[in-house]
């Protein structure tokens, strides 16, 4: 399926929104208004391309912490993100119990995840098993950083999906760094997709700077999964254009030249130029969209700043389902 002009513009809009929210989070951190931010800058194209290939609210998603753009494409609002950054009352994914960027969105079948990496891969295979047992035509997308594919959790999850031909797409967002450790010290293979060979499922590496290539790759993996042919392992080659998190300083382990070279391949700029070249987007329309996006971000910031913190007593529940309070 070819993406329509409207779809391309919507993909660009979400990438832009993710970028402006992410940049704003760094500023809020520098201003001392938030305690922590973990960034997805440089990975927006891969995430939005993947999200658009899914049926939102029908398919299932088990994401990881860098997936701001993926989550916005699935329905996360700027306000929800800002509330989570600030740990404010009414934060919808965890009631401000979790650190920021620990996603959950029931309306889009996005399951809650934790901080120990790769645990979500097993959940994705379990969801895939349930889909198969219930004979539904849903698929599961689970994302992960390349560093986390060293975890036994991940191998066990992929092994399960391959054995039972489960409708799961394992998407590895390979930004080459696990905090400070280069891919060379994480795996002996050139691509995380090469790991598929030993587990008995197809693997492919995709240019994760190109949202359309990502869409194509994930859409065909989803189609294969819906046919009952089983899982696919995809690697998206992306750049992490920021330090790992607001607590990291990447000057201690990678050169500025390396980072500058990466920035010359900024997926947002690349997609902008491509859309302008294809006459899908004009420079004026892009500027208007950017202004509108910045306005949207500021609205979310202003809103969230005035929201109070949750009362301390909220911390006492819900330990068990019996303790859940509605409303």
């Amino acid at each position, binding site marked *: 399926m070819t993406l329509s002009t409207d779809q391309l513009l919507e993909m660009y809009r979400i990438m832009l929104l993710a970028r402006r929210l992410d940049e704003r989070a760094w500023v809020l951190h520098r201003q001392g208004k938030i305690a922590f931010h973990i960034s997805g800058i440089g990975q927006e194209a891969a995430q939005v391309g993947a999200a658009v290939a899914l049926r939102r609210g029908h398919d*299932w998603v*088990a994401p990881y912490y860098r997936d701001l753009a993926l989550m916005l494409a699935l329905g996360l609002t700027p306000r929800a993100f800002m509330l989570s950054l600030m740990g404010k009352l009414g934060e919808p*994914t*965890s*009631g401000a*119990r*979790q650190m920021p960027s*620990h996603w*959950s969105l*029931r309306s889009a079948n996005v*399951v*809650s995840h*934790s901080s*120990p990496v790769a*645990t979500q*891969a*097993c*959940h*994705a*295979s*379990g*969801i*895939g*098993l*349930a*889909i198969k*047992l*219930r004979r539904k035509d849903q698929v599961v997308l689970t994302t992960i950083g390349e560093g986390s594919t060293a975890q*036994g*959790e991940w191998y*066990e*999850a992929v*092994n*399960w999906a391959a*054995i039972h031909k489960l409708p799961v797409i394992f998407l590895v967002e390979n930004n080459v760094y696990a905090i400070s450790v280069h891919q060379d010290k994480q795996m002996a293979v050139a691509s995380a997709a090469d790991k598929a060979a030993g587990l008995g499922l197809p693997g492919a590496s995709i240019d994760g700077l190109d949202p359309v290539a990502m869409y194509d790759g994930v859409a065909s993996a989803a189609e294969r999964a819906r046919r009952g042919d089983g899982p696919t392992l995809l690697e998206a080659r992306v750049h992490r254009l920021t330090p790992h998190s607001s607590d990291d300083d990447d000057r201690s382990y990678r050169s500025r030249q390396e980072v500058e070279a990466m920035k010359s391949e900024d997926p947002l700029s690349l997609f902008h130029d491509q859309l302008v070249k294809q006459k899908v987007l004009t420079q004026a329309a892009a500027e208007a969209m950017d202004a509108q996006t910045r306005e949207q971000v500021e609205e979310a910031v202003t809103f969230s700043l005035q929201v109070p913190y949750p009362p301390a007593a909220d911390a006492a*529940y*819900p*330990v*068990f*389902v*019996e*303790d*859940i*309070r*509605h409303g």
Partner: protein
Amino acid sequence: MAEITLIEGLRQAMDEELARDERVFIVGEDVGPRGGVFRATLGLFDKYGPDRVIDSPLAELSIVGIGIGAALYGMRPICEIQFADFIHPAFNQIVSEAARLCYRSNGEWTAPMVIRAPYGGGIGGGLYHSQSIEAFYSHVPGLKVVIPSSPHDAKGLLKSAVRDPNPVLFLEPKKGYRLIKGEVAEGEEILVPIGPARVSRPGRDVSLFAYGMMHHYALQAAGAVAAEGIDVEVVDLRTLAPVDRRTILDSVRKTGKALIVHEDNLTGGYGAEVAAILAEQAFTDLDAPVRRLAGPDVPGVPFSHPMQDWFMPDPAKIAAAVRELAAY
């Protein structure tokens, strides 16, 4: 009424729950055609088929992780860990994931599932087929920990666990699988609620708290000392988390003396929690120091029989501890 073994009680529970709710399925190593290495799932594969009784790869963490995913989707998995000793790779999935899902999503996501694991020593299993793991998991908020000690409770508690909306770690005293027999009503639904402990033998002189195989031994020890005029109240704790404080406190307020028995080693064991409850809330009711009889603090149950016997609490050791406490 029919007399059945503890493992038959478990099998009946799974059979009935598989029949009742099509969301229920069993997953674990060798649970399929083999019926489990202990035969807990014997016949269920033939009766319900490969979609309901699923042989897993030999990898414990994903047995639980897969179960969590299926539970998130809306299924009701029963995950079997072949021996409790092998549950440790799944600690992350149980503790970081299943137990925390409800809290961390403010109730948006939950993990209704049962993790069954045979535990305990005295079966010649050595260090890695004898472990008691309840203390690690009873420490974890968000997880229920249940240990039955009779066929009736095995059946009724497991059925309740399958229906519970929370994750339940269901630990089975494997030495008692065939050794412990009891009457179980036929043709009626048996549901034993998770939570309440049970006074299995009322008494006046000493409160004896135990669970699993040690509860079975505690009843034998109480019978032995009764002839000597010591009237022991035996309490089967049954649910370790969340703990039934009221039953524990009510018993000690009556007897003034408490002995806790478990085969898990002493330090940081479940007995310490019971002792702390009594110290904090029944201090003035106590007529003697709280006593614990537990496995010794060595890294496991040794294989060779004399050493295994040295490790394991048994009815004679329990009776000796009761006599000492009664005489205080």
